[in-house]
């Protein structure tokens, strides 16, 4: 042991019996020759004793009552948390997926209605022939014929005259031996445009 500084670093190990035999002999030799270090070692021992004997304080009488109340609040919080997680993600994901799909479907339907109204109804209403309750439009380049009518029967009659084909009125479907793609009846407009019926066909 060469210095007091070295001794200082080893005091705790010394008083707690953690030094090996040689280190212990060295420090004891130093302590015999160095009064300040010997005094420190003694102070360490007294200090440890005093710290270990510090009087203990105890919790207040209502500590347990307060803790129980806090635990009750905590339990309620946990129950609430569990309730919000009642459905596991394996169930929640399909439910959310289906809900999302339903919303998208409804949006598409609404958008489709709006587009159809914008496309057909004003167009028909602006036509000078509309006052007669029947409008027949033909696209010259494609030859497609679109019929707007206030009543369904008239629209079907017009199409029938033009095509000489038989139309099943009940279903508003086209019964034809010809290629069905050449004759289309737009059923959707029966509902979408209120009382305006539109049928169309192309050759």
């Amino acid at each position, binding site marked *: 042991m060469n210095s007091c500084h070295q001794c*200082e*670093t080893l*005091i*705790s*190990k010394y008083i707690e019996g953690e030094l090996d035999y040689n280190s212990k002999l060295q420090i004891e030799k130093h302590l015999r020759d160095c009064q300040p270090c010997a*005094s*420190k070692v*003694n*102070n*360490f021992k*007294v*200090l*440890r004793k*005093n*710290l*270990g004997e*510090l*009087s*203990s*304080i*105890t*919790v*207040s009488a209502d*500590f*347990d009552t*307060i*803790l129980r109340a*806090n*635990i009750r609040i*905590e339990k309620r919080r946990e129950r609430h948390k569990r309730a919000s997680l009642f459905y596991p993600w394996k169930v929640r994901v399909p439910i959310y997926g289906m809900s999302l799909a339903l919303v998208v479907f409804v949006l598409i339907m609404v958008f489709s209605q709006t587009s159809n109204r914008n496309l057909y109804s004003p167009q028909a209403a602006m036509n000078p022939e509309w006052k007669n309750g029947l409008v027949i439009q033909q696209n010259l380049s494609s030859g497609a014929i679109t019929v707007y009518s206030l009543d369904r029967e008239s629209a079907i009659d017009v199409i029938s005259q033009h095509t000489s084909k038989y139309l099943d009125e009940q279903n508003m479907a086209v019964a034809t031996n010809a290629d069905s793609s050449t004759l289309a009846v737009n059923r959707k407009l029966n509902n979408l445009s209120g009382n305006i019926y539109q049928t169309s066909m192309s050759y």
Partner: protein
Amino acid sequence: MAIEGKGNRPTDEDLIERFQNGDLYAFDLIVKRYKNQLLNFIFRFLGNTEESEDLVQETFLRVYRNRTAYQKVAKFSTWIYTIAGNLAKTELRKRKRRRFFSISELGYNEKDYDISDDAYNPERYVDSKMKEEIIHEQIIALSAKFREVILLRDVQQLSYEEISKIVNIPLGTVKSRVNRGRLKLQEKLKYLLER
């Protein structure tokens, strides 16, 4: 029935396991075992009884809330002391911020903050109660890192290994920190220790 600790006294680890399985009585036993130990640890750390008791309450609430997080590989005592120690350190940080704002608001006045060394005139303190108060004040005056390890080692009498886990520093660092803390304390309390 699970085999419990020596005699009929279940170990802390048995109790927390029972509590994890829904036995609330086991939680009550844990509270009974640790409430005063933790109060003394936090009180010696912070120096305020009321705040300390609040933090002990919060410690048990956190044990309750995080009961599933505890794993039997660790000693329960190190786990609960870690929670209590972290709460105490957080409280210290809050105090520092509050003090900072408080000083900022008042403006610096040397007279307000100059604590005279004469406050610890040895002749004023004769009985053991006074002696204890002086020791307590000097523990509080230590920096938090020394205070924590001194309290855990010399007041709570935990092993160096446990302290190393609680404070989350290497074993060698704990030992040297304890030694340095004791050196500082004995320097401050020299007049008292050599009486």
